[in-house]
């Protein structure tokens, strides 16, 4: 570890984590909880609590970038790959910021407050770079501001998440549809409650002025205690998102991989007139040198990890982008980026591949993703 404790940033919840016996680790320039120590805590307990009751996640390290002005829609349509015009007030949308080669600079969620006021939530590791890129590439009448230090962010996820959040804020929130958000009045200010998440469970991601983060965190834990809520670290966050087959920038997504090759097709609006990466995307779609993101399950004992090579018999196909044995699925699973000519038809579920683990080829089977789907309530 090259960073010292003093170089790392701390969220408003740092002290809260210490009080909860968190094991703190450096992540994207921040000192974050990877798990919490103690009875009934730890990665497996935290992951399981999120699937059966509720998990509480400090995501204040994520970045927030504001785009405001009369050409906000045009600006975002140019700078990102999804169709911003489809959004209505109070709606959120997953998408990505692409470079000219259609590589992914970051995956994002865009929140529309009004036609001239948008907030983009970006990954902690890319916040500064995203803001630089957007500012440099913008050619529309908007003001782009990096609001990351103004915001705290907490995610509450799981079957009991909505109930707990309603109880804490004393407000009906179940009328917020998926990928919609509400601006709630809170202590003379407001908090944004969005029905989004990174776990495959129902729940909210809550944005608040940084000074309110601690009391909201403590409050949700307190109100949620009877429901079985647990604070969850980055370890559980990763196993949960993997089971839901949600990509992680730096693993499934990155500037070197074309957005059409890593599972983002659904979020790319190729019929938009002009946007950064469009030309490259059109060219990549015509190519026979494509890639495809697949989910797999090991069929022999072992666990595969990111960067393990993937083979079809002797032919090197690609590599694992994320892999581990996860608590709910309870099998060694992973995502892999593999070469193919036609992503629609090549390497369907059921096909056998090999993953090289510490020099040994281990048999695996491609499975459809997500690995986990929550029951409809």
């Amino acid at each position, binding site marked *: 570890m090259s960073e010292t404790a003093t170089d790392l940033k701390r969220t408003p919840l740092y002290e809260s984590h210490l009080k909860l016996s968190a094991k703190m680790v450096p992540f994207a320039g921040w000192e974050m909880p990877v798990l919490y120590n103690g009875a009934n805590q*730890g*990665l497996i307990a935290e992951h399981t609590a999120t699937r059966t009751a509720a998990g509480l996640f400090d995501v204040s390290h994520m970045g927030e970038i504001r785009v405001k002005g009369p050409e906000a829609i045009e600006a975002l349509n140019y700078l990102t790959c999804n169709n911003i015009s489809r959004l209505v007030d109070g709606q959120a949308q997953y998408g990505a910021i692409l470079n000219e080669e259609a590589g992914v600079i970051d995956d994002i969620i865009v929140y529309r407050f009004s036609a001239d006021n948008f907030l983009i939530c970006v990954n902690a590791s890319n916040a500064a770079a995203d803001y630089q890129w957007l500012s440099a590439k913008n050619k529309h009448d908007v003001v782009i501001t990096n609001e990351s230090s103004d915001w705290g962010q907490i995610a509450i996820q799981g079957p009991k998440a909505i109930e707990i959040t309603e109880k804490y804020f004393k407000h009906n929130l179940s009328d917020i549809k998926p990928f919609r958000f509400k601006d709630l009045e809170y202590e003379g200010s407001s908090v944004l409650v969005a029905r989004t998440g990174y776990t495959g469970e129902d729940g909210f991601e809550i944005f608040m002025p940084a000074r309110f983060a601690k009391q909201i965190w403590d409050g949700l834990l307190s109100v949620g205690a009877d429901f079985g809520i647990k604070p969850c670290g980055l*370890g559980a966050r990763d196993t949960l998102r993997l089971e839901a087959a949600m990509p992680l920038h730096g693993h499934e997504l990155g500037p070197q991989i074309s957005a059409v090759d890593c599972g983002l097709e659904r979020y790319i609006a190729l019929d938009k007139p002009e946007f950064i990466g469009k030309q490259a995307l059109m060219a990549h779609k015509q190519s026979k040198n494509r890639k495809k993101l697949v989910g797999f399950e090991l069929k022999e004992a072992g*666990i595969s990890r990111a960067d393990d090579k993937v083979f079809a018999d002797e032919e090197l196909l690609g590599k694992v982008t994320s892999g*581990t*044995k996860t608590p709910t699925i309870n099998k060694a699973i992973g995502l892999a980026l593999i070469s193919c000519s036609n992503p629609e038809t090549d390497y369907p579920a059921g096909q056998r591949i090999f993953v090289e683990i*510490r020099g040994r080829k281990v048999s695996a089977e491609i499975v459809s993703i997500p690995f986990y789907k929550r029951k409809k309530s």
Partner: protein
Amino acid sequence: MGLPANYKYTKEHEWIEVKSDSASAVTVRVGITDFAQSELGELVFVDLPKVGASIESGKSFCVVESTKAASDVYAPVSGVVCSVNQELANAPQLVNESPYEKGWLAEVEQVSPDSLKDLMTAEQYEKFLSGK
């Protein structure tokens, strides 16, 4: 958790329990210490050596895996693996719950009595840990 007084220990946080000895060759049982299991976190998989495999002191002979990472366990002695803990296939967490007893990894025979000399006593390992 108290360190078993009759075990020997290594700087890599493995323990050795002598099971039988003769003048020429010794059989030992090995595992990792409570400190090691605590550092690793909850284990979800243990990749044990094959019975009959020759192992060499200081070289990796087993891999223990948590959700987050795979870690080598270094052979504390040289010899031949004569049995492995089958329980770990279904319950790798035994290493976390009972690192000195139920979570043993393997038994090794034909260990030269000499290779046991440089190992630490419980007291020495205790001191080594407090220096961390």
